């Protein structure tokens, strides 16, 4: 199995301060890696750096061998990476429909706006609402739909279940499972361990900007004590 994403020696942070301190991570093609860790561990920083939304101080980010570190986000996006950002970041002044339309690439992809509506009918009902006239959960659905429309090879999911009702989490999980089966890779940052374990092939735990654990999901689940220690729960 080849690695789709290879990150090595990544240093990044804000205003000169360092958050990621020489981080290495690989995501094999067709697999889902769950990225876990306490608040402030640096998960979002990592995801943003891969996406090109934050310029790393140093290090390498390779997608299928192509160096992306330092490339602007639109270039990263065009090489097949899509993000469901933390905090949703839907476009407030645009309608649901417009939010989706501007995400859809001009050429045909596997996803269409109609298919997103089918997946999340709630969005179809609210298609004429502006982004900021949606409930929190509806915004999260929109953010997921927007990323799917990009038809990515690599999905960066930063807490996609945040704010979703349990039933919807279920639906989303099903979709992601199907995508995984279709060969899409993903980095899944999650606090909902049910969802993380259900989707991930491997679990990576971050703490203070470093990776402190990496292993198959089943192995991670087998040691409750270690897992609790890693995640900071007594």
């Amino acid at each position: 199995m080849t690695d789709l994403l290879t990150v090595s020696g990544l240093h990044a942070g804000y205003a000169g301060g360092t958050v990621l301190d020489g981080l290495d991570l690989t995501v094999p093609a067709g697999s889902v890696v769950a990225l876990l860790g306490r608040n402030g561990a640096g998960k979002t920083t990592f995801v943003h750096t891969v996406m090109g939304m934050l310029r790393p101080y140093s290090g390498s980010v390779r997608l299928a061998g192509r160096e992306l570190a330092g490339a602007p986000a639109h270039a990263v996006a065009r090489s097949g990476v899509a993000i469901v950002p933390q905090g949703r970041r839907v476009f407030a002044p645009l309608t649901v429909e417009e939010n989706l339309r501007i995400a859809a690439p001009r050429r045909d992809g596997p996803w269409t706006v109609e298919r997103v509506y089918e997946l999340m009918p709630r969005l179809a009902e609210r298609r004429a609402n502006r982004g900021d006239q949606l409930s929190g959960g509806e915004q999260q659905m929109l953010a997921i739909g927007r990323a799917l429309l990009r038809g990515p090879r690599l999905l960066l999911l930063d807490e996609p279940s945040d704010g979703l009702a349990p039933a919807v989490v279920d639906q989303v999980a099903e979709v992601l499972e199907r995508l995984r089966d279709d060969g899409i890779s993903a980095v899944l940052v999650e606090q909902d361990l049910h969802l993380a374990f259900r989707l991930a092939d491997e679990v990576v735990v971050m703490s203070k900007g470093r990776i402190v654990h990496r292993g198959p999901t089943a192995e991670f689940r087998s040691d409750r004590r270690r897992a609790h220690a890693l995640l900071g729960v007594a």
Partner: protein
Amino acid sequence: MTPVLELRGLTRSYGSLTAVDHVDLTVAKGERHALIGPNGAGKSTLFATVAGTLRATSGRVLLNGRDVTALPESERARRGLLRTYQHSSLFLGCTVLDNVALAVQRVQRVAHRFDRPARGFRRTQTRALEHLESVGLAGRAHDMASALSHGERRQLEVAMVLAAEPAVVMFDEPTAGMSAAETERFVTLLEGLPRTLTVVIVEHDLDVVFRLADRVTVLHLGAVLASGPPAAIRSDEAVRAAYLGAARTEDLFTGGAR
């Protein structure tokens, strides 16, 4: 049992959409009341209408038996009715400490004093630090709020609202974005709060809901679908269909003792 918060036929529409539809709800003093429901059910809208951020289309809000429907948001807050935001709403250009101190100094009635530097108001500073301590942010007191991660902001949001010494506090998905450890701390914090304080909480994390709540109300399409003790709600078929979906009962971890 004295009702501290009563909603009578509370309704709020956005144009043709009635997001909150004739909701009647009574919350007793000291109660831990959970509000759950599918996305878009109207939970946040309900909170905003009760808090006074949004005007009610019709219906009334009673706080300690007094009608507060006509009062602006700040007046309701002064009477102890406060809420947190689903999307953190912080003072991003201020320090973490200042965020909490803003709440504290209002309660201590020194918010408009300008005869001494703020540092000189010891009581305010210590109180604010205590609140930060309680959510685990004391170490970041002097960082800018904008430098907090998403989950840290959620914690600050909690500290801020508690620092405003509410009589009734409405938490809108407080643990969304908090890690397991932080969620645990939040639940412990809530459990430790005195029973003079009334809590209404919206949550999608059912573990939290069922651990904390005395009573649970389910909102669906803006209206109350069911209301009752947690056990009754958990087994309610309608609730299951509208909200819970496939129950996730399996144990997360397969090995080791708990």
